[in-house]
């Protein structure tokens, strides 16, 4: 799948107005979702995903996605994300511990975006594999190591195929080499951005890979929407290296060949 999106920043003071306007444009109330995102890093030498999960974990219809992901991870190692939906009322500030291997999660991979060519649209390949459970176990069994975690709070609107998402990220307290056992209370989270700005993304997905004419069409559609939205939001051209998920291979010393 390919995703195309525009990026802008919204000040906390403008958030309510932005939501009201987006609500009017999309004829829907914002959907609030909170994700706990675990980040995993692949080994320095790309090895793909050698261990395919059993059919009890990987439904048949997702098998192709898994194969495609494995192919991408053979080319280079990447940072992968496992996202868990959480709620402030039940998951934060409680004694309970989330058992990541028993909860459903989405395994996300995104590629380095395509070169920009002076367009504010970021366009990149992505693969989302929804899995019913055991995501950390499967990833570790495939040579991926847990690195860190973040909380994402987002409000999203849909207008036709267009997805409009306002997100904010929060740090979780340090926890040596594994996700923290008890999430702190929602109000004690430390925002990634001290000014608490929101990141606005206006997104379109192109389900088919390898169909440049569909990408061009989506690009045009997004630009049409940009013309409408840019009276409200200041879209930024974001350097594609900001979205670089690749893991640098170990340095090769010239003359000695790969180790």
């Amino acid at each position, binding site marked *: 799948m390919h995703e195309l999106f525009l990026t802008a920043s919204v000040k906390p003071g403008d958030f309510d107005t932005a939501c009201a306007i987006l609500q009017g444009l999309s004829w829907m109330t914002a959907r609030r979702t909170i994700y706990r995102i675990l980040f995993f890093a692949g080994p320095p030498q790309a090895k793909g995903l050698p261990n395919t999960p059993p059919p009890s974990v990987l439904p048949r219809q997702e098998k192709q996605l898994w194969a495609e992901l494995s192919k991408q991870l053979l080319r280079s190692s990447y940072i992968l994300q496992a996202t868990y939906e959480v709620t402030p009322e039940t998951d934060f500030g409680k004694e309970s511990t989330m058992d990541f291997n028993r909860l459903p999660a989405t395994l996300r991979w995104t590629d380095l975006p395509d070169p920009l060519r002076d367009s504010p649209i970021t366009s990149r390949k992505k693969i989302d594999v929804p899995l019913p459970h055991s995501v950390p176990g499967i990833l570790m069994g495939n040579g991926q190591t847990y690195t860190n975690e973040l909380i994402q709070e987002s409000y999203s609107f849909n207008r036709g195929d267009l997805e409009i998402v306002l997100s904010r990220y929060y740090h979780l307290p340090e926890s040596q080499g594994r996700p923290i056992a008890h999430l702190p209370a929602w109000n004690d989270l430390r925002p*990634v951005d001290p000014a608490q700005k929101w*990141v606005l993304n206006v997104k379109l997905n192109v389900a088919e890979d390898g169909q440049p004419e569909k990408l061009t069409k989506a690009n045009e559609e997004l630009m049409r929407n940009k013309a409408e939205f840019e009276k409200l939001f200041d879209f930024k051209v974001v350097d594609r290296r900001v*979205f670089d998920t690749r893991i640098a291979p170990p340095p090769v010393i010239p003359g000695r060949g790969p180790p």
Partner: protein
Amino acid sequence: MSSLGLSQDELKAVEQTRQRLSQLSSSLNSLKNDVFISNPLPNLDSLQASADILNHNVHAILEILAQNNTLFGRVAIHPSTNFPGRTQENILLQLLRKKPEPDVEAAMDEGKRTLASMPWPSQTQSVITTSWDKEKETVLEDIWGGTRDACQMRINEYVMHEESDSFTAEEHEFGIENVRTGLQRSFDDEYEDEDDEMEEDEAEGAPTAGNADPDLMIIDRPPPPPAPAVSTQEVDGATLETVMRLATRGRFTG
């Protein structure tokens, strides 16, 4: 039925119109009640939902009217012979009235006036007279003509006086020697060199990658240098890039 002289289908069209009108009327009534009863006014969601419903209702009516345009054009309505015309005169008058009631007519006129004053000439052409049209066109032409003249004057000034200036007004204000151009050599030298390179490139039709200084790394898009004397980090918190980078990789290192 036969006395009406309508076929089954035609009768169905009339019946459908009646149903849709009654739906519209009840939707309008419920909105009216909502607005009257709720204090404070109903929230944005419910108003939007009502507007959505009304929109659908009107759309459905328009659709039926358009489909059965010819039928409704020739159907004449008259009361049945056994209708108690004398006792129910009021309702008869109301039903058989051909002109809209005065207050409805006033509302319709207001709507027409609003439509005529909308700035889309193509949609209102049928409503307004040609002389009015002409007048409006001249006014518009004047506005656009003035705008074009102003633009041209500004462009002239830019080409004559400002085009060779590589710095923005803000940079001039802070002093151009403080501007971080991101270049190792002085700005003017680099500018001339680049000019030469550009000419060579045009001749060869190849990108600049080959002939650069071997010590210089080519980056696919160097970010613009931050404006001098403004530290965005302190004023606005983390930059958009920083947040996005962290959201992409989970941490800054590794």
